[in-house]
């Protein structure tokens, strides 16, 4: 450990929250944005969400189809690899469990998922991290429709991983049996991204 001369730091989270802030993170009250390029804007009438496996579309949902699925609410902390953590964010959407059920699937059709998004962004996740209520495709934040800058109309929400995994503008979940590194993962970011183990970059334990 290298002590920084003169640095005492004042960002220690108030005691009650300290157990909720992963190492290297600090609390914010606003909601920063991190995106590689311009913000895509998709009109709802052109929006669809597909679930695919290696061969075919398992289901393609229009906005109306999506809205007709059971809606769930999730209150959760989120952690961005650029070092901010935001507590108690409130989301609404459809859990991946309900998406699979809606497509008539009892088991996920693969061990990994590549989330595919408007603008060409992709991210990879183990299916185990998406099911059993761990993740949703979210359309509302804090009670309001998700703004385009934050991934609207719909983004993936996988709050227990660094937030780049919660892909904005999601349009497809592609199930497969091998893990294919996505956009940031091919550019040096960690393939899994657990904030509690500080898995920021390739090679972090």
């Amino acid at each position, binding site marked *: 450990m*290298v002590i920084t001369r003169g640095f005492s730091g004042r960002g220690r989270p108030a005691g009650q929250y300290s157990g909720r802030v992963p190492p290297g993170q*600090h609390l914010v009250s*606003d909601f920063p944005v991190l995106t590689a*390029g311009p913000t895509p804007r998709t009109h709802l009438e052109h929006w669809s969400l597909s679930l695919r496996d290696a061969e075919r579309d398992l289901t393609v949902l229009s906005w109306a189809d999506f809205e007709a699925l059971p809606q769930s609410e999730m209150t959760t902390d989120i952690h961005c690899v650029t070092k901010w953590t935001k507590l108690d964010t409130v989301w609404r959407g459809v859990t991946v469990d309900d998406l699979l059920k809606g497509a008539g699937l009892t088991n996920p059709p693969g061990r990994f998922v590549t989330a595919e998004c408007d*603008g060409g962004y992709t991210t990879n996740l183990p299916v185990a991290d998406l099911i059993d209520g761990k993740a949703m495709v979210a359309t509302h934040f804090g009670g309001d429709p998700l703004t385009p800058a934050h991934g609207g109309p719909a983004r993936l929400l996988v709050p227990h991983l660094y937030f780049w995994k919660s892909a904005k503008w999601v349009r497809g979940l592609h199930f497969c049996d091998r893990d294919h590194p996505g956009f940031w993962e*091919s550019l040096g970011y960690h393939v899994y991204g657990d904030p509690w183990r500080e898995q920021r970059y390739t090679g972090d334990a």
Partner: protein
Amino acid sequence: MTSAALLPLRWRTATVIARRPETPHVATLVLDVPGWPGHKAGQHVDLRLTAADGYEAQRSYSIASANDGTAVAITVERVADGEVSPFLLDDVRVSDDLELRGPIGGYFVWSLEDGNPLLLIAGGSGVAPMMSILRARAQALKPPAARLLYSSRDQASIIYRDELDGMTAATDGPRILYTLTRERPVVWSGALGRVDRVMLERIGFPPTDDPLAYVCGPTPFVEQVAADLVALGYAEERIRTERFGPTGAN
């Protein structure tokens, strides 16, 4: 996609070898990083500060220097109530050690092979990675055409002013348009007000030239500029953005 970006990153101890005030609220720190593997223009480092009781704070800073041996420059702007930036500006001295790792980032990067005309649009300290790009470009024998549109609060807040003006004066130098959002000088050849489509058309390239655009600054600035570029006909996949900071309330 460089393979270098996929090597594990480890924390290194760097030594501050120079400290240069740039504006009343901005300073550059030049760090000597033994074993530095080199970087591409546009990449950043993560700094880690550690208090005596083990408390750590990490922040990202863009590399402002071109690839230059083991010297790495960062340019820090004061966030008034910030934890790390005031410390870096007020308390860090030459010969202090700081921990960092990098280079990080494989998308908001530029190298000569990217070719094509280069349009850089910066707000405030978002000029730091642009400076790395312009410095790298200045080392090239046949650099691509480049233009910089750079928004500052007032004249006193323009970072790297002398060096930028020097670059413009050089053969093959970039064309630069400054704009000021909070000052209207009596004598001023730049633009006034926030970056808008008129300014982008004045300094930019026609989209048919297939320009490569880099936009960096505060989040609302980047959102607006990137949307304007798309509206002007720039290809989305040729617009690379880096957002430095929070959005304000949302």
